[in-house]
């Protein structure tokens, strides 16, 4: 028996679509997007306080005006991809039935509280407006760039604008309705754009790895208040990798291109006042510890085997350090030993080296380079 799936049918019919589209002239796609005024949760947008911002310096290759000009409609209108506003969680011992051990989840630990957000749920919503340990946060995911990031949201909530820049999710906050491209974590519209969101680390790992590392975790369920085909990813699959996630083609073109890596290669990206760096994840898996200079400052990327993720540190004491065993990364000797990192003879877990830890996240190479063409690449 020959099984014909939806993609095959649509592919077969693609010639018809192409011929039709070729007959049409260009027009303002954005005009279809409508106004960001009808949030799915019924909020009125009357509040004036946007999300909290922080003073930080990030590398920028484009002005806010250039980014706004590069915005394009992804198809859905504002909130056409509805953020989850009332997330429901299950215990790790009673996870959602559809969640396989090898499926990707986005893990967060804040103030000792661990939560996992399955990619299979977020692919339909892209944003979860949640509270972790009493702190209002948004956990966000863009399927087209493979980026999961966390932001403090204050009293407002974030929604999916339906707009894309560099194929990346453009969020809007419901208080001010200004645009915040996810990867940039920066406001690009409104008066005096350039405010930066405060971020927290979101770990891209698998459910099995996260549950093992954090048995007390809870996990987001598909009881979202929406009817979606959970368990079926419209773009492909990660377990195993297939479809959009595995192919080399773009759905939306990046701001700029680079061919040193295949477009969907996963890198661990970090940007700070010192510059931007991308470390190929597979390389970090192999080398375990990669030391480099960025902006004249010594940095180190280390691999975390249990979670299959990485961390990037720079010179400076860890915030929680009491100073008794102060170590200078500029002169320290780092080595890998049985899953831990040895710093000048002292053993540390990969996520708790005695240095300043930077916010990093996994990203598809094309997306990272599109936003940060000045990036250093470790491949």
């Amino acid at each position, binding site marked *: 028996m020959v099984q014909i799936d*939806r*993609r*095959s*049918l*649509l*592919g077969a*019919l*693609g010639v*018809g*679509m*192409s011929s*039709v*589209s070729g007959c*049409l*002239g*260009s*027009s303002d*796609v954005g005009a*279809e997007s409508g106004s960001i005024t009808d949030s*799915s949760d019924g909020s009125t947008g009357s509040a004036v306080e946007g999300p909290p911002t922080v003073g930080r310096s990030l590398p920028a290759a484009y002005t806010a005006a250039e980014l706004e000009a590069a915005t*394009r*409609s*992804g*198809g*859905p*209108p504002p*909130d*056409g*991809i*509805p953020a989850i506003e009332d997330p429901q969680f299950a215990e790790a011992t009673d996870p959602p039935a559809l969640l396989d051990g090898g499926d990707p989840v986005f893990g967060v630990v804040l103030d000792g509280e661990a939560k996992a957000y399955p990619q299979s749920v977020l*692919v*339909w919503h*892209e944003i979860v407006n949640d509270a972790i340990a009493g702190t209002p946060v948004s956990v966000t995911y*863009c*399927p*087209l760039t493979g980026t999961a990031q966390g932001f403090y949201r204050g009293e407002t909530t974030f929604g999916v604008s339906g707009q*894309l820049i560099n194929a990346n*999710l453009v969020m809007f906050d419901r208080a001010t309705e200004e645009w915040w491209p996810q990867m940039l974590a920066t406001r690009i519209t409104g008066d005096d754009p350039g405010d930066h969101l405060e971020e927290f680390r979101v770990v891209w790992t698998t459910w099995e790895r996260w549950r093992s590392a954090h048995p007390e975790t809870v996990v987001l369920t598909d009881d979202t*208040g*929406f*009817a*979606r*085909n959970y*368990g*079926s990813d*419209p*773009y*492909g699959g990660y377990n195993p990798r297939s*479809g*959009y996630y595995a192919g080399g*083609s*773009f*759905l*939306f*073109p990046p701001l700029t291109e680079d061919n040193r890596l295949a477009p969907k290669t996963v890198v661990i990206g970090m940007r700070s006042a010192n510059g931007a760096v991308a470390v190929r994840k597979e390389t970090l898996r192999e080398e375990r510890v990669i030391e480099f200079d960025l902006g004249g400052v010594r940095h180190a990327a280390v691999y975390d085997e249990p979670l299959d993720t990485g961390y990037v540190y720079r010179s400076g004491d860890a915030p929680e350090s009491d100073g008794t065993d102060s170590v200078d990364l500029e002169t320290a000797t780092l080595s890998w030993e049985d899953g831990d990192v040895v710093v000048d003879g002292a053993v540390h877990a990969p996520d708790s080296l005695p240095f300043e830890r930077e916010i990093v996240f996994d990203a598809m190479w094309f997306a990272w380079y599109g936003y940060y063409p000045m990036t250093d690449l470790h491949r």
Partner: protein
Amino acid sequence: MRLAIGRRDSAAVVAAVTVGYLLAYLWATGDLSLRTGVAPGVLVIDDPLGRLFARTGPASFGAIATVDTGIVRLLLSPVNVAIGAIVAGLVGINLGMTYLAVRRPTACGIGAGSGLLASVPALLSGTVCCGPVVLLAIGVQATAVVLTAFVWLLPIGVALLLASLAYVATKIDPGRPIES
């Protein structure tokens, strides 16, 4: 229309095509999918009336219920079903007319399948999630022109179907006997 549904054989064609196209439309929009291993059941979201007209794309609307049969899953969006039914009905009548035209070639001079071709744009209009997923299958980048085309696929499809219907109707002589 009376021509197409006035005869038993052509009415059967209209009904079969309408149902088949509606199923294909819902499949293309992602509302209908194979989903085995899930227990049969219906799950209605909170405030279904409030979300009835929540748009998820240029011509698609969010589902208010999940209907599992154990084999297929239907994400029930009444507006999508209504749009799909209208287009499917037009396609059905078109092909019913075409069927009559084929059965009476001396009356027509038109080729079979004109209604089918006209139905393609509407079928491709379904979009879901972040960008028109159909482009993944086609391997076309979502440029501004293509996305604009997507916005117009449904109305273009309906217009083509209506035009095709009018054209075929003028070519058929209902009084002429069926040639075997």
